[in-house]
Structure formats: C-alpha cells, structure tokens
C-alpha cells in the first residue's frame, strides 16, 4: 500500500504583495497508513502551511506531494474536491458556518458528500454526542464557547468517516480536561479504527501522546522522532 503522505522537497512560497515569503523550504516527509503523527514547531514555522498542502487545500510551489500515492498537483478541481471529502480536517480557527447550528454544521459536510437527510441527522447527532455536545446541538457557533466550537469542528471532520484526519491545533482553545478527552477520542480513532492522524500542536505534552513527533523549524523539518 502506498504511503498516505509522501512529500519530496516540498516548497511553498507566498507572495505578500511583491514580497515572497518562503513558508516551506524543502520538506521531506513520509507518513504510512495508521500512523499518529504530531507536528511541533514555533509560531510561523510553516505548520499550517504544510497541513493545508497535505489536506489538498493548497498547491505546492515546488516539489512533489503524493497523497495516497496520487500527485495532487495533477488533480483537477473536481478530483481535489473528491479527495477533500475523504480527508477530515480540523482548522486552527474552527471555521464553522455562523448561521447553522452545531447540528447543521456537522450535517453540511455530509450533505456535500451526498448523504441523505435522515442518515445525516442520525450520524450528526451521534457524533455530537461523542464529542460531548448532546445538549448543545441546536446552538449556533456564536452561542458556543471556543472549546465547544472546536469540538463541533472535530465532529464535522469525522462526519464522512475519514481514513485520514488532519488537525490544526485541535486543543488550542480547550481547557486541559476537555483537551484530554479529545486526545483520548483521537487516540481511539487511531487505535481502534486505524485512522491515520496528523496533528499540529504547540503543546509538548500532547505531542507525547502521538506515536511519532515531527519538529518543524523555519520551513523545514528539523527533527523526526518515534516516541
């Protein structure tokens, strides 16, 4: 089986006006199916940039990136969309849709994937219960705390039963008790369901929960260790 992620000399340069910003300066990374990988690194080191590329949300400036053995720069718009549906992505800034309730937000990602109405509702309720939001299902994001919004975002990422889950600081806004609960959930997904997980974090302690820790520094991988 092809590795879930295979990045070779991956580069990403943003243009801020006319000034080029090298966010990634040659990343080499291979992630096999079933791995649980934590990405550590200081702010601005390029963690989110890397995760966005792996999540097929953006295209690299140079280098190759194979996701499940497929070169994403060769995929067209519609194929990229299909790929994104199979990857669960938890954003650093939640990115919930304000006018929908927690339930509506979780259902939305299933409606994009053509799941029928009844199944959507059933599964969204089940997921929200799993992340401990059973009694907040009909609240809109503005009526939820940061941690609750983060959990809705996690439920949404899990909606289409992804085999590959990307999380950008999933516990950044959560108290340590809830954070531990979420870590337990993520670990269970990895161990029981074999979901491949890449999680970006600032937190050394949380990183220790992962099977493998990758350090990103100034746009390159500075260390890669197995716990």
């Amino acid at each position: 089986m092809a590795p879930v992620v295979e990045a070779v000399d991956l580069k990403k340069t943003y243009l801020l006006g006319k000034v080029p910003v090298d966010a990634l300066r040659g990343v080499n990374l291979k992630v096999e199916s079933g791995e649980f990988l934590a990405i550590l690194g200081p702010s601005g080191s390029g963690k989110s940039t890397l995760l966005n590329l792996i999540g097929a949300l953006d295209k690299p400036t140079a280098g190759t990136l194979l996701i499940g053995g497929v070169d994403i720069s060769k995929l067209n718009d519609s194929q990229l969309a299909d790929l994104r549906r199979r990857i669960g992505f938890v954003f650093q800034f939640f990115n919930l849709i304000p006018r929908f309730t927690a339930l509506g937000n979780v259902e939305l990602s299933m409606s994009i994937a053509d799941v029928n109405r009844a199944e959507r509702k059933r599964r969204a309720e089940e997921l929200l219960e799993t992340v401990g939001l059973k009694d907040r299902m009909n609240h809109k994001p503005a009526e939820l705390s940061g941690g609750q919004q983060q959990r809705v975002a996690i439920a949404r990422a899990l909606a289409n039963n992804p085999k590959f889950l990307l999380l950008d600081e999933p516990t950044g806004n959560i108290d340590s008790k809830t954070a531990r609960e979420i870590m337990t959930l993520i670990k269970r997904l990895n161990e029981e369901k074999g979901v491949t997980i890449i999680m970006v974090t600032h937190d050394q302690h949380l990183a220790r929960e992962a099977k493998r820790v990758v350090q990103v520094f100034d746009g390159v991988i500075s260390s890669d260790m197995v716990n």
Partner: protein
Amino acid sequence: MRATDVFGYSFSAIKLRKLRAGLTTLGVVIGIAAIVALLSITQGLQNTIAMQLEQGLATDTVVVTPGRSILSGAGGQGAGIGATIGGDTSGFKLFINDTATVNAASTEIEDSIAIIQRVIYVHSENRTFAINVNGVDFAKYAEFYGSTFVAESGSISLKPENDTVVIGRRLHDPWKNGTLLFNVNDAIDITWANATARPPKNETYTGYVAAVLKEVGGFSFGGPSDTGVYIPLSQAQAFFGTDECSMMIVKLKSSDKTTIESVSEAIEDAFNGEVSVISSTAVLDILSSVFSVISLFLVGIAAISLLVAGIGIMNIMIVSLIERTREIGILKALGMKSRTVLMIFLSESVIIGLIGAVLGTVLGWGLANAVAVVLSGGGLFQNIGSAQPATRIQSGLMTITPVLTPTVLAGALIFGIGVSVIFALYPAWRASKLKPVEALRYE
C-alpha cells in the same frame, strides 16, 4: 450535493439577508409588473377591437364627413383620418337630402342615413354634462345597427315622438355602482348653446328618456355609443334649425376591402372630393397599430427597468460573494465542487427571480385591472371634457378587459428568472473560482 440541498442552502443564505434580498426582488417585481400590466392591457385592447369587428361595429359601413381628405387620392382606407383631424376648412356642407347623391354613387350601396350631431348640455341634480347628441332616423339607425341600437330598458319606438330621447348606457349608470343619472321615463333637459343667434343664447327643450341602450363598449364610430344621446332627426332639424348634417353612415352590400375602397372612391367623386370617407375597419386598424407601437415602446422601457434590476442583482451578488468569501472557503475545504458553489449562487438568483416574477405578475395584473377601471369608469367625464364637434370619432372611451395570455405568463417567469440568472453568472463564477486557503484567510 443534491439539488434540494443546494436550494435549501441558497434559501438559508437569502433568509439571512432578508432586507437586501427583498429590495433586490423589488426591482424584479417592478420590471415584471410593468411588462405584465402593459401586455395584458394591450392584449385586452386587441380583444376589444377584435370583438368590435365581429359584432358591435358594423364593418359593412363607411362614414362620410364633409371636408376634403388631406391624403386625397390615397383611397378610402384611412384617408379620411386627416380630414377628420384637420377639420372642415373648405366651407363645403353636407345636407340631409344628400343621402340621395350618396345612394346613387354606387350599386354596391344599400342605403345611407344622415346624422346631425351637436354638443349639448344635460343637467342632473347640480351637475352639468356636455354630451354629443345625435339626431338620427330611429327606424333606419336601428336597421343599420341591429345589434347595438337596442334597448336594455324601455323601448325604442321606430316612429318616435318629438320629445323621445334614447340614452347610452353610461348616462344611465356612469359610475357603474348603481348611482343612476337618468332612468327610463325621466325628463331630460337638453340645452344647446346657439352661437348663430344674435345675441348667442341657450336654447332648451325637455325630452323624455324612452330607452337606455344596452352596453356597447369599445369604440363607436358613427354607431351607438355608451356616452351618446339620440333624438329623432326631425327634432334635431327643428331644434338646431338646420338641414346640414354632421356625417352620413353608408351601408354597403359587402364588407370586403375592395368594395369598401371602390365605394369610398365613388362617394368622394360624387361630391367632387369635397367629402372624406372612412371605413370603421380602417379606423380600428390604425388605432390598433398605434396602440401596438405605443405598448411596444412602453414594454421596451419596462424591459430596461428589468435590466436595471438585473444590475442590482449583480451588485448584491458581488457584495454577498465578498461577505461570504470565508464561507465559500469552508465549503470548498469540506469538498464542495466549484460547480456546486456556482449552482448555489445561481439558485439564489433563481429564487429571487422566481419570487420577483410571481409577485410582479400578480402586481402587474392588478395594475392592469386598475387601469382598465380608470379607463372605463372615469371615461364619461374625460369624454365630456374633450367633446368637440370636430371630433367625429365619437368616443375615445374604451371598455378593456385585461387579458393575461399563457405566453405572457410564461414569458414573465422566464424573463424574470432569466435576467436574474444572467446577471448572477459573473458573481457566481467568481465565487466558484475562489481558492480554499485564500478564501479561508479572508477576514
């Protein structure tokens, strides 16, 4: 994404911006309403004209009026209009016994009658109305206009007394609400301002309403009119002190075009071109084509207003696109295809266009009916105000029933939705082209 989900999503986005969406819809409503109103009135008018041609208006008659046709030599069809508008300038006069000359002009002529027409005043309570009175030979007039010179109440005597008066339907019930002006057996004072007397003076006689005509509707051209008053020819001769007639109605043996043309020419020749001859069909033809042109022009203006509405839609869509950049980024990050993003924006415009078109059609239909009521209800007084002896087309008054054809209905819907969608294409396309990461970073 399923079509129903796409629509549901669009609907939730519209609901979020009710006021803005409402105002945008209003633009479509106004444009569609104007188009529907104009087209349904025009259609109603055309139906009225067609109906007149079929029954009310005697198509086998032509009207002879004194005065040279300005378009002399152009033939009977419509040639008289110029003279009618231009009025009598030559000093030539038509007399009652000239009917003999007319009848001898062509073998295609069945008979002819003379009409003495004057503007008179009638009084009711404390109002005064200026109305056209027509002195006619009741027996012949009834024969010429068998379907319209018919009593609704009372009866029309073919050998009337001198003081017999027959009135048009609208003098009986002008406001159509049961407030009656004159009824059968009422006395009616007819006043004429005699300008030839020295000094000028008002002359009055009291007649009795013998009959109220049934509603004629539409245009009357020499024939009975809803706003006309009819008295015996002999009474008109005596009262107005003249044998000069205002017009003659000539009944032909056939109503086909060539007959009308040849007879028209023969009559003009018989009077050395000093008269003009107009056929009622020609007048209706001209009127209907004038109305078509006017309504086409107005529909054009309405269409422009719809285009303005379209630009409004484009504007609101672009604003909405900018506001929702982040949302679109989320949708794309969740795996929504560009095509679906496009569909969401287009279906928003379809919803706006559909609601606008439906409301616009309803409003336009209401508007058309209101205009029709104004045209027919207020007609009496309009007509009175402009009643001049020179206007020989006796009435500009119309009874229009607006008609909404399936074509107009379908056209309004298609046009409303079409304009909305076309103007939403560009914003929708831009939305669909947004890149997820860039859109997600948008504040």
